[in-house]
């Protein structure tokens, strides 16, 4: 049988999926063990013991200086920035994408600008943001907005334009005015697609968040990682990276489920 026609069973598929994770953990464990055997104070590849101790210190004990549980403070700060940034970007993408997709006059006017803006590397204008908006929360949120909104705008506009012409004609023969075409035909059909766009934009959003926090911040997951880097505190950095990954997966899956629940017609192949 050809390789392309050989499919794993359920159990085999799960096993195959888990295998790379196991190998990764195993390699790390062996390497860590070896280094710690040579030097018990090695900081580069901390073992499970050191990492649990670090997590316990960061997440479950009050910080001696501030009296806060640092990991939670960092998590809340970062999620707030991420949520605000991506939320604002999504709303902007929806509005601009809809009018761009539906109204040829606006598209002629706005589409070149949106395309150009989406090509500007957001990190290159981070200094401008710091100068204009200061080092506070606003500039970090703005970086996420600027980094993700233009691409989502283009995506939404594209999704609107992919709606069949037949539907656009049909809704007009039912007497719809332009406003109704947007609100009753385009908007409801584009919402689930917007959620998909947000899911894809979350990756870049995390990137911009951590970059902004690394440069100017007093708390946040990205700030902490870059802070403890000075002490080579891999026992803190690694759990933080894993924690960020877990958060990203959870947010992504929540959005996926929300999409399924809210738009049953979309996921059942109704589009």
């Amino acid at each position: 049988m050809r390789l392309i026609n050989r499919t794993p069973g359920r159990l085999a598929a799960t096993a195959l999926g888990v295998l790379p994770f196991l190998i990764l953990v195993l390699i790390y464990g062996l390497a860590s063990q070896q280094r710690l055997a040579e030097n018990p104070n090695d900081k580069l590849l901390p073992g499970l013991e050191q990492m649990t101790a670090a997590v316990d210190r960061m997440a479950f004990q009050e910080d001696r200086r501030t009296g806060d549980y640092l990991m939670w403070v960092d998590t809340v700060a970062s999620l707030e920035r991420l949520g605000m940034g991506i939320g604002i970007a999504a709303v902007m993408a929806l509005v601009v994408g809809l009018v761009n997709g539906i109204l040829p006059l606006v598209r002629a006017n706005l589409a070149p600008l949106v395309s150009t803006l989406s090509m500007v590397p957001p990190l290159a204008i981070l200094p401008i943001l710091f100068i204009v908006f200061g080092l506070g929360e606003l500039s970090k949120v703005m970086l996420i907005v600027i980094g993700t909104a233009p691409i989502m705008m283009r995506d939404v506009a594209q999704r609107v334009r992919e709606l069949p012409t037949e539907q656009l004609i049909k809704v007009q023969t039912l007497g719809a005015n332009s406003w109704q075409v947007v609100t009753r035909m385009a908007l409801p059909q584009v919402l689930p697609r917007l959620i998909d766009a947000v899911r894809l934009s979350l990756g870049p959003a995390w990137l911009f968040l951590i970059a902004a926090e690394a440069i100017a911040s007093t708390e946040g997951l990205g700030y902490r990682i870059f802070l403890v880097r000075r002490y080579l505190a891999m026992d803190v950095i690694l759990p933080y990276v894993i924690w960020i990954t877990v958060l990203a997966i959870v947010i992504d899956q929540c959005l996926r489920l929300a999409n399924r629940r809210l738009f049953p017609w979309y996921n059942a192949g109704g589009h």
Partner: protein
Amino acid sequence: MSFISVNKLWKEYGDQVVLENLNLEINEGEFCTLVGASGCGKSTFLKMLLGQETLTRGELLLEGETFPEEPDRNRGIVFQRYSVFPHLTVRQNVLMGLELEQKPVLGKLFGKARKEALARVDEMLESVGLTASADKWPHELSGGMQQRLAIAQSLIMRPRVLLLDEPFGALDPGIRKDMHELLLKLWREIGITIFMVTHDLQEGFFLGTRLLVFDKTRNDPHAPGAYGATITYDLPIGNTDEKLLRDIDQSVANTARHQAN
């Protein structure tokens, strides 16, 4: 004055002539079927009736007035596919037109007005045989049922003209026959003017009151776009025989072959 009149109508895209010198008078309540080879302008003509395309020269009049240049609620349309809204259930799909008409800003009906509108919707669904599927999503319906829905959605607006662009082209032959019966029934009940484009000559021959054959009378093999199509047969249905059907079939097939070369 007739309901729709077409005077010396031409349609060209650049050098390519699609329709040449079309003349036609249609009375209110007629059921016209438009047949012809692909590329002979029957869909283009339908789009002009709809307001999706504009004519190049000539006149297209509805009760003596020029046709509006964009689609409106007086002209319903059913396409071969994608005519219904996937994000609305069957009932909501039919309700949509009533809501859009009564609520220009919100586009939604509430309370008593909604209840009254839904009563009309259910009546409509009953007459196209979709009562049992009222709360389903369009993707849960078969192709034939989706077309029934598209027809119901248009007819609830009581348009003056109903345009059908190969509405049954994607359906199985058996289902197609049911749809013919449904369409004739609705047409008799409502007395609306219908234009239907079809590929299927048989369908055109036995459905409706008038058959319009779009065909090219001249063909230049070196410049396929030089001559457009026009109406070569305009026949009242009922006075037709097998030989005529074969003649038309032959002529349409010839044109199709020329187009393909």
